[in-house]
């Protein structure tokens, strides 16, 4: 199947019953999206598909055929970290960090749709991500710090290769 991952067109062999999360982690070696509940409840596996935040554990790889997938590895560019990543670092928006890629991707997808969300909109958009360390307060500050900063940085689009930690050894 073909899909675009972090700006790069890929051709991969995927079994029909694999989830998108399995494809990303086990074949493309993009381990930023984490395995948490594996049931669409915790958000650790959040990635963007065609700009929409989705749980990669609750979607088949085949359902992402022909689509544009962005994982946390695709956010940073040669110019450095993505504004959402930078804001999370500056605001110390995490503790153990397990949930962080998921939160970053949920925040990224929110800011794509709505560059200046209200606090209520941020809370609603992040309600699908759980943090076992209870760092919610800091995470909220991180997203607030990133609001209004995304315009300068368009999301990776087809053909625009971003150098991320893109895995090897696949189609």
């Amino acid at each position, binding site marked *: 199947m073909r899909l675009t991952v972090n700006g790069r067109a890929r051709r991969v062999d995927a079994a*029909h*019953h694999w989830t998108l999360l399995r494809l990303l982690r086990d074949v493309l070696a993009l381990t930023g999206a984490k395995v948490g509940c594996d049931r*669409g409840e915790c958000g650790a596996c959040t990635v963007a598909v065609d700009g929409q*935040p989705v*749980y990669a554990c*609750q*979607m088949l790889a085949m359902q992402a055929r022909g689509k544009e997938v962005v994982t946390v590895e695709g956010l940073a560019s040669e110019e450095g970290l993505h504004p959402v990543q930078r804001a999370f670092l500056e605001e110390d928006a995490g503790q153990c960090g397990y949930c962080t890629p998921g939160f970053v991707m949920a925040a990224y997808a929110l800011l794509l749709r709505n560059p200046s969300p209200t606090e209520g909109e941020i809370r*609603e958009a992040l*309600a*699908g991500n759980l943090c076992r360390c209870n760092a919610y307060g800091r995470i909220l500050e991180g997203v607030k710090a990133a609001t209004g900063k995304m315009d300068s940085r368009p999301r990776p689009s087809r053909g625009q290769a971003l150098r991320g930690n893109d895995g090897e050894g696949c189609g």
Partner: protein
Amino acid sequence: MNPFEFVEPESLEEAVSLLTKEPGRAEVIAGGTDLLSELKDGLRRPERLVSLMGVEELGGVRWERDRVWLGASLTLGSLAEDERLSGEYPILAQAARSIATTQIRSVATLGGNLCQRPRCWYYRHPGFPCYKKGGVHCYGVNGYNRNLAILGHGASVMVHPSDMAPALIAMDARLESFGPRGRRTMALEDFFAGPNEQQMQEHVLERGEIVTGVFVSKPPSDARSVFLKAQDRTGEDFALASVAASASVSDGAVTRARMILGGVAPVPYRSQKAEEYLVGQAVKEVESSKAAELALCHARPLRHNGFKVILTKNLVRHAIETILKQ
């Protein structure tokens, strides 16, 4: 997950023929947000998944003169964010917005929401061969039944988990489907089937029949409506109870009322007693607590869910007060 073949036909006819070719071996997949959990837990082991996402005609919103058609593949996210829909049918956007999380709503479809399977923990647990999985026993009857039915239970005390269903029924929506015998429409209310009518599904679709969309008539200009939902935690919990209420008022009196309860019975529960009480009443004389008592007059709570009766009454009261003030 057991291996299966994933096919994505481009036409409805093809989808139906793929589903009927080897009956029992193929299942429909729309967004997959519910189905994948069942597959991961081995509750179903289809050999083929027939995806509807390649069938273009199932997507989108179509505005007609006196009604709107919502495609089965419309995502709950698009439904919640569609400005015209939110303006003309606020109850639908309220219900859609209350469902699950942003990530689920990006993918979950309207058709999948109406056809989703029970969320009862005994049903979802691979270790319980419960009635809804073809067994003889509903473990909810004597087990831990805090979240289960207070009304209308039969062979199973499951509750129907859909939030879109009550909201749509309150708007007198009609369901459109396509199957081996062609296209048909029915009142959405008649689409749902309780455990005594259907053991292994919660609707009346035939093998190979697919939900294609939902029609909702334009509400009269004097109509008002609201969707309310009680959850343990807002965010991603299913409804402990929900209420979808709509009414028309003219010359200070209620002329039409719908009171649909979700999360309390195996099918979306229409409380006709409450509706009958409301119709013909002068708005000023409506006693919302009386309507709430009537709405729940058939309630038979189980060992752990008596609180749901009180909770639902309060929602009904609140819903009536809200719409009569609109």
